[in-house]
């Protein structure tokens, strides 16, 4: 069998399992007494072992096998878990991850001898020799069987070490158990037991009305039974997630589909314009119908690309754990809103910015335990990663309850560079962000308290902006810092408001449009020496699109609409010449040429086939 074609699947599935291993290890480490995670860990590692062996990746299979030995010993209480065990398991999961990646990339990395020895030692001695590939594959099969079994009780049976024919004894024990219920799975398999290919321990899954005591008693009548233990079903084979009919689709394919739908929308828009002009009822009707069909199709394609943010979030608990360990801090990491969904392509891009922000929070935000206590805080700091859904966007929040940004120190540094005349009191959050998001800010920083704060903030800012999103900061000295990332639900197709200025058309993503009002010259006032408008008793900084784009030509019309842009809690008034309605636009990826003003977020083709610039609302604020 040519297994090469399964390499991608192997890689994807292994990654999922490794990710879940990290998750389970973290949970378990939080509460070492609760061994619920152990069963899941064992299953994941076991699955990777089986897959690795099937692929012929002996490095993967051997490492997984050693980990399995340790997990097995832990599961049966032969060795007990301690801090070192967790560290070792984390290391092993990492090493297994590398082995998987190496193997899938065609590099068979060398095995880590030290890790191997450590795993063996932790498992209470050298393991049985690594079984050959065929046996491992067999192991995988019976693993399948056992996890496919219905819910029920899990019984661990240990046959005495000095018993003869332990395999037959084990089978006898299974038979005894069967007198009180239905045994749905046996591990190792009966065939393996018969060949005595086991170490005296077997696990069965069964459904029975009998009590644990009754079951244990009947199993013991098989003789030579050293121990009978019961586990909650969740610990050995957690309830399998509900089975949906699913297929895996290459994201590239979905990207192409999305692009096609985008083109279709442009064509549909053009058809709509033609139909409106034609005064031909059948054509208008057809155009309307196509519009509805394309909208439905667009919704389906977008839905198929939606992925819970939890997929990206799940790697962070491990990161924070490692960071707090390295930094000698105590950090509680909480995650909220894992189920909120985002377009896969945005999700893929959002991981890095979050990583930078979380690392910053752990490294620079959260103080050392003694410092926190002196400040009257709990020794344990807290970082919260939360996702919330808003109208057409998702907000990702990284908050810490650490020291906050030291504005005085920040200003001192900025003043040395002669860049600001602000005072700590007047330095707004936006100003803070502008400073720390400057490329190279961190490397130049020597100021304590903010040192390194900029690490990655510029990177995060750039990435988020490239997604059509925004980044905000809120920081309070002594209380902590919050970063807010706002990204659109999906890329590529956005609903936009079309505006005209100086004879050119511009698209403003609707996600950032709060409302439109009529420009009232009497409402003009000044805010910090800049023009501002009073709208609903709120003074908003004002931007004239004509001025912004240096539009010449006809003078501005007397009656001018004003678009109120809103990003988070910040608002700005954008005065335009005319509003031309709403349209779904396909934002073309935009490699901004040099000199392109920052307020241009992309370009699009309008319904009539003419190009238009897409405004970046955040840059206008």
């Amino acid at each position, binding site marked *: 069998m040519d297994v090469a074609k399964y390499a991608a699947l192997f890689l994807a599935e292994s990654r999922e399992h490794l990710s879940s291993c990290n998750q389970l290890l973290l949970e378990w480490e939080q509460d070492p007494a609760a061994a619920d995670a152990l069963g899941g860990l064992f299953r994941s590692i076991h699955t990777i072992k089986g897959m690795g062996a099937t692929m012929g990746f002996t490095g993967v299979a051997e490492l997984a096998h050693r980990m399995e030995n340790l997990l097995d010993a832990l599961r049966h209480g032969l060795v007990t878990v301690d801090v070192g065990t967790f560290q070792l398991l984390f290391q092993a999961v990492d090493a297994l991850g590398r082995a998987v990646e190496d193997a899938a990339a065609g590099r068979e990395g060398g095995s880590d001898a030290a890790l191997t020895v450590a795993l063996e030692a932790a498992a209470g001695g050298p393991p049985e020799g690594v079984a050959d590939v065929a046996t491992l594959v067999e192991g995988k099969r019976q693993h399948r069987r056992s996890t496919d079994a219905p819910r029920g009780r899990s019984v661990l049976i240990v046959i005495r070490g000095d018993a*003869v*024919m332990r*395999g*037959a004894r084990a*089978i*006898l024990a299974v*038979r005894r158990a069967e007198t009180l219920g239905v045994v749905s799975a046996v591990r190792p398999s*009966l065939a393996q*037991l*018969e*060949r*005595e290919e086991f170490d005296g321990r077997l696990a069965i899954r069964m459904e029975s009305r009998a009590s644990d005591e009754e079951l244990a008693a009947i199993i013991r*009548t*098989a*003789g030579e039974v050293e121990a009978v233990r019961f586990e909650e079903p969740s610990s050995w084979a957690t309830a399998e997630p509900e089975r949906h009919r699913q297929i895996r689709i290459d994201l590239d394919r979905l990207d192409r589909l999305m692009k096609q739908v985008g083109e279709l929308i442009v064509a549909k828009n053009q058809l709509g314009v033609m139909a409106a002009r034609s005064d031909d009822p059948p054509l208008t009707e057809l155009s309307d119908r196509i519009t509805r069909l394309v909208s439905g199709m667009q919704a389906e394609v977008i839905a198929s690309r939606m992925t819970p943010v939890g997929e990206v979030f799940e790697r962070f608990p491990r990161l924070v754990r490692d960071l707090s360990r390295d930094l000698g801090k105590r950090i509680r990491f909480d995650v909220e809103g894992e189920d909120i969904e985002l377009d896969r392509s945005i999700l893929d891009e959002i991981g890095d910015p979050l990583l930078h922000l979380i690392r910053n929070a752990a490294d620079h935000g959260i103080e050392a335990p003694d410092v926190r206590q002196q400040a009257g805080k709990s020794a344990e700091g807290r970082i919260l990663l939360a996702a919330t859904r808003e109208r057409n966007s998702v907000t990702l929040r990284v908050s810490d309850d650490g020291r906050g940004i030291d504005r005085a120190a920040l200003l001192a540094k900025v003043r040395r560079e002669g860049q600001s005349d602000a005072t700590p009191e007047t330095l707004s959050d936006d100003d803070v962000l502008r400073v720390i998001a400057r490329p190279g800010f961190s490397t130049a920083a020597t100021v304590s308290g903010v040192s390194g704060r900029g690490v990655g903030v510029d990177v995060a800012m750039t990435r988020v902006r490239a997604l059509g999103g925004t980044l905000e900061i809120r920081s309070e000295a002594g209380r902590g810092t919050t970063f807010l990332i706002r990204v659109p639900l999906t890329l590529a197709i956005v609903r936009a408001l079309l505006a005209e200025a100086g004879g050119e058309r511009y698209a403003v993503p609707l996600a950032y449009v709060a409302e439109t009002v009529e420009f009232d010259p009497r409402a003009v006032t000044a805010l910090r020496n800049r023009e501002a408008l009073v709208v609903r008793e709120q003074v908003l900084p004002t931007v004239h699109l004509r001025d912004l784009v240096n539009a010449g030509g006809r003078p501005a019309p007397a009656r001018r609409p004003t678009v109120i842009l809103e990003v988070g809690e910040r608002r700005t008034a954008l005065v335009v010449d005319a509003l031309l309605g709403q349209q779904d636009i396909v934002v073309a990826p935009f490699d901004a040429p040099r000199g392109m003003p920052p307020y241009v977020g992309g370009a699009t083709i309008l319904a009539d086939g003419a190009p238009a610039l897409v405004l970046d609302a955040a840059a206008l604020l």
Partner: protein
Amino acid sequence: MSHTVLVCDDAIFMRTMISDILAQAGFDVVGEAESGTQAVEKYRSLKPDLVTMDIVMPDMGGIEAVREICKTDPEAKILMCSAMGQQALVVEAIQAGAKDFVVKPFQPSRVLEAVQRVLG
């Protein structure tokens, strides 16, 4: 009242030894069989509380005998007597309905433990 036992083995040596072990422990050895066929017949006529059954016997083997006996009496308490290296056969006997097994060379204590388990 002591339990009745039927001892099945093709070797007189083994039958004698097993009978002695059981008798000394207070069991009532009511019969002996030297083949599977005999074992089935004697089980039906004697209705013993317990049967010890050798696996390899002439004419009808022990496993076949277990199958036959369990056909009419699924609750029959049969203890298999096996030699080393016959694990697959022992497993087969268990699947056929044997309730326990002991492995030669016999240690009297193990035989008695097994008998006690089978008789409950």
